[in-house]
Each structure stands twice: as structure tokens, then as C-alpha cells.
């Protein structure tokens, strides 16, 4: 199973050079987020009294300039990227695990079980996410964990729907019937036949969920609900930058460009993967 899917993914990516470029860029960004802050000389909250609000590319030692408190913008952006990525990855993972398990089971069982489970999903879907997040924040306080729960709790819904549709279709395929005739029970069929065969669309959707999660987190942090100072996330960096737009535009430009880059690469990669894993091409 893994051989088959991995092979497809690799073959597809190699063919599409732009996809390869995006994957490489993403890898570099992740690397930068993880390792960058250690390698750079400044700390995230280190204040440089001599260079406050200095623009980038000047010989100040701060490659991308500083914010109005004299903190190095590159380091803060990388930290922000780290936080945003971490939350987005974790939330996507949660959405993936819950969504796939839920959707695969519902789609395979069909009938009343499926109807009940999907009604539950529909109900949650109807709740306004921001409202829910605000309530969570009031109850659990601000911070990464609340954010994770908020994003993950909604992210799994769409995943469940997609997976359930795929599972419904898979249920009708003859090799599932062959497995039933071979004595396999529901658990075995769902884990060994249904889920591996829908991993293609799931991977694609996960790659597209990631940028959504980043955007949601950024938005919430921008609103002041998510990550709080002095912890940096792309969202609150952008919020800060927006406030200084006239005097220090680089404070907005740098984190915004970073966000844009990550989201673009993820989306593009996801699209390429989806095209590549299209069963019609096989």
C-alpha cells in the first residue's frame, strides 16, 4: 500500500517542476522556522536600543529591519512562522485523525449510522466558528492550546465530509465486497481497505487545510484573540505592522510576505498533488 501511494506521489511531483519548487520552498521555510532563530544572533524579544524601527537592507546588522521596540524583524518573523506552522500542523493533524476516522466509519456503515453521524457534522458546521472561538477563549483563556482546539474542532468537519463521500463510493467497489466475503469485519475493512484507498484525496485536502489553518490562526491573532504578545505569530505581527503602515511599512511587509509565501506554496502543492493522484490518470 505505501509503496503504491508513495510511488504515485513522487512520480507526480517530479513531473511538475513548479510543484517541486513549491515543495522545496516549503521545506526551506520550515527549516528556517525551526533552525533559523538559533543561528541568528538576535533573540526574539531582545531589544536593540540603538536601532529602533530601522528599515531592512541597511547596515544595521538587522537584515530585515526592526520593529518599533527594536526587536529584529527577521527573528520575530521566523518565530512567528514557527508558532503559526506548529499550530497549523497540529490542528491539521487533529482534523485529519478525527475527520478520517469519523468519515470513513460513517461512509462505510451507510444507513442510519451514517445519517446520524452526518447530522452531527452538519449541526456543528452551522455554528459560527469565530463565535465559538470567542467562547472558548473566554472559558479557557487565550493561548496556543485554545487556538489549536478551536481550529481543529472545525477543521475535522470538512475532512469528515470529504472522507465520508469517498468511503461511500469505496464501499460499492468490488474489492470491499470481496473482503466481506473473505470474512473481514468492519474494523479490518475500514482500516485496511477503505482508508488506504482514500488517502490520496485526504493528503490533498490536508495540504489544502494547512494554509487555511494558518490563515484562521493569523486572523484570530490579528483580532487579538489568538496568540498574545510577547509571543509572536504571523497574525499578531501583521496586526502590529498594520498599525505602523505609514511609518514603518516593512513591519507589515515582511510577515505578510512570509504568510503569503507559505499559503501559496501549500495551495499550489495541494493542487498539484490532487491532479497527480487523480485516479483517471492511472
Amino acid at each position, binding site marked *: *500500500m505505501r*509503496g*503504491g*501511494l508513495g510511488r504515485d506521489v513522487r512520480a507526480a511531483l517530479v513531473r511538475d517542476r513548479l510543484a517541486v519548487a513549491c515543495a522545496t520552498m516549503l521545506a526551506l521555510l520550515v527549516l528556517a522556522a525551526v533552525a533559523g532563530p538559533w543561528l541568528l544572533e538576535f533573540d526574539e524579544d531582545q531589544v536593540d536600543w540603538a536601532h529602533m524601527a530601522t528599515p531592512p537592507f541597511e547596515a544595521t546588522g538587522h537584515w530585515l529591519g526592526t520593529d518599533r521596540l527594536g526587536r529584529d524583524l527577521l527573528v520575530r518573523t521566523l518565530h512567528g512562522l514557527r508558532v503559526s506552522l506548529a499550530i497549523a500542523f497540529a490542528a491539521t493533524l487533529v482534523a485529519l485523525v478525527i475527520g478520517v476516522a469519523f468519515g470513513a466509519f460513517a461512509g462505510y456503515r451507510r444507513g442510519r449510522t451514517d445519517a446520524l453521524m452526518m447530522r452531527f457534522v452538519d449541526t456543528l458546521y452551522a455554528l459560527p466558528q469565530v463565535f465559538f472561538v470567542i467562547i472558548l477563549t473566554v472559558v479557557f483563556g487565550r493561548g496556543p492550546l485554545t487556538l489549536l482546539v478551536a481550529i481543529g474542532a472545525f477543521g475535522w468537519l470538512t475532512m469528515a465530509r470529504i472522507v465520508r463521500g469517498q468511503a461511500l463510493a469505496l464501499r460499492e*467497489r*468490488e*474489492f470491499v*465486497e*470481496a*473482503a*466481506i*466475503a*473473505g*470474512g*473481514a*469485519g468492519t474494523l*479490518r475493512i475500514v482500516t*485496511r*481497505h477503505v482508508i*488506504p*484507498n482514500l488517502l490520496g484525496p485526504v493528503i490533498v485536502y490536508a495540504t489544502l487545510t494547512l494554509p487555511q489553518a494558518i490563515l484562521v490562526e493569523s486572523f484570530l491573532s490579528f483580532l487579538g484573540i489568538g496568540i498574545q504578545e510577547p509571543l509572536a505569530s504571523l497574525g499578531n505581527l501583521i496586526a502590529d505592522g498594520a498599525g505602523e503602515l505609514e511609518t514603518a511599512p516593512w513591519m507589515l511587509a515582511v510577515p505578510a510576505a512570509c504568510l503569503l509565501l507559505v499559503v501559496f506554496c501549500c495551495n499550489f502543492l495541494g493542487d498539484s498533488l490532487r491532479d497527480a493522484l487523480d485516479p483517471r490518470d492511472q
Partner: protein
Amino acid sequence: MSALLEVRRAVVRYRRARMPGPSLTAVDGVDFALQAGEIVALVGESGCGKSSLGRAILGLTPLADGEVRWRGRRIDTLSREAFRPLRRELQVVFQDPVASFDPRMPIAASVAEPLRALVGKLSVTERTARVERILAEVGLAGDTAARYPHQLSGGQLQRAGLARALIVDPAFLVCDEPVSALDVSVQGQIVNLLARIRRERGLACLFISHNLAVVANLADRILVMHRGRIVESGGCADVLHAPRHAETRKLLDSILPVDPVAARRRVEARPVPAAADAPARLTS
């Protein structure tokens, strides 16, 4: 001696998908019995309900009425879970080998699956050994085990399908049009293999087909189905050479000979009747 498998007044109905109203009756009151070691051919054109009947016997489709008895015990009312242990004895070979194998699993894993599900407590080495043995028995070379379905030909895959069905040593095999999706030059391989294995193991078999010529040398008895009912049943030679029902005659007639003179006569002599409205198609 009581029959191995008994089907009485079996009825299978399908709800039409997305359409309200009465359901389609695929099987409309079928009675027959199968003795141990017997091979019975179930023949009819597509839509007659033969596949639905096969599925109902295997518990893959529910019966709307009637009963199915295995070794005297009713099995049509069993839940999916309760039926599972029986699958060691009742197995199936499907029509389309390519569709009946999980494309993401290597052959060995697919063939071993009934073993894992139905025969617990086997070590990995034992399992692998049994898989190798059964693959050899159906004529698949050693390296086939590690391959994926798309790397095998239709004939090879169907052999693997047979291997998968036989690995748990069943007493009864339902073969649902096992050669219809294969090239003609390969069909004989599978049919002969099936005949040999059946003889060696003493398997009872229900062979479903739309082509009487394929079962002519294989079956002990033939059941002809038409619109959900069995319209003729008898010994193989009797049904083939002295058919009594019009549907049987139609099926026999539809086999075009390869002798050009006879074939041309068959085709040109037909009065080309105006096509009347046929009954709605069943998704059997």
C-alpha cells in the same frame, strides 16, 4: 442424505436508487438444492437475477422472503457477524478480477486476508507458507506474490481470486461469471483449473454464467434462470440436448457457431423481429 445447500422460495428485492415506488424483484421465488461435491451451473442472460441469487446465498444481499439452509441450518437470517464463521465453508470468486482486488495491496496480502480474518492463531511463517502453497496450486509463479494487481494479467488475477477463495479450504464455492471478463484464449485455463481443483478437493460449486457452452463440459446439473425464476433444471446433457423451455432454447440459439456456413445461415435466417419493449433492467 440431506443436501449441503438448500434454497427455498428465495426472493430478492432491490429498492430503486433515487426513485420512489415499488422495488425491483430480482429473484422471484427460487427453489433448488445442492449436494456435496456437485457442480451446478446457473445460467441466464444478464438481468435474470442469477448474480443476485448467488449474493443472497452468500449473505451479501438480504432475502426478502424464503430461506437458505446450509447443512440444514438457516443462514439467511444471520447477522453479518454471525455469518462470518460460515465463510470458511462458503466462498466466492468474482467476475471482474481487476475490480475484486484492492489495488493498493500486494497479491500475497489479498490472498492471505481470509486466513487472517477467519483462521486465527496462525504465525506469520505458517501463513506465508499456506499462501505460497495455494498460489502454486493455482499455477502462479513464486514472484507473483509480491506484485500488485495492476501488474498481473486478467487470467493471472483470476487465478489469484481462486487462490484467495480456496485458502480457507471451503466446502462450497460460488463462481460468479468467473471467465466472462477474460480473453477467450485464456478462459479455458481458468475453467479447466477450476474443474481440476474441484475434483481434487471434492468441492461443491455453483457456477454462474450467461454462456451455456462454457459450462457444457463442467456442470453436473444446469439451472436456467429467466426474470428471477428457474425455468428449467436438469442434468447437463438433458438440458443441452433436449431443452424444454423457450428461454433455454433461446440461450442455446444465441451461441453463434464458428463454422461460417452454419453461422451465416443462423444470422441471415433470422426474421429480424421488431424489437418490443424489454422489461426494465435489473442491476443484478
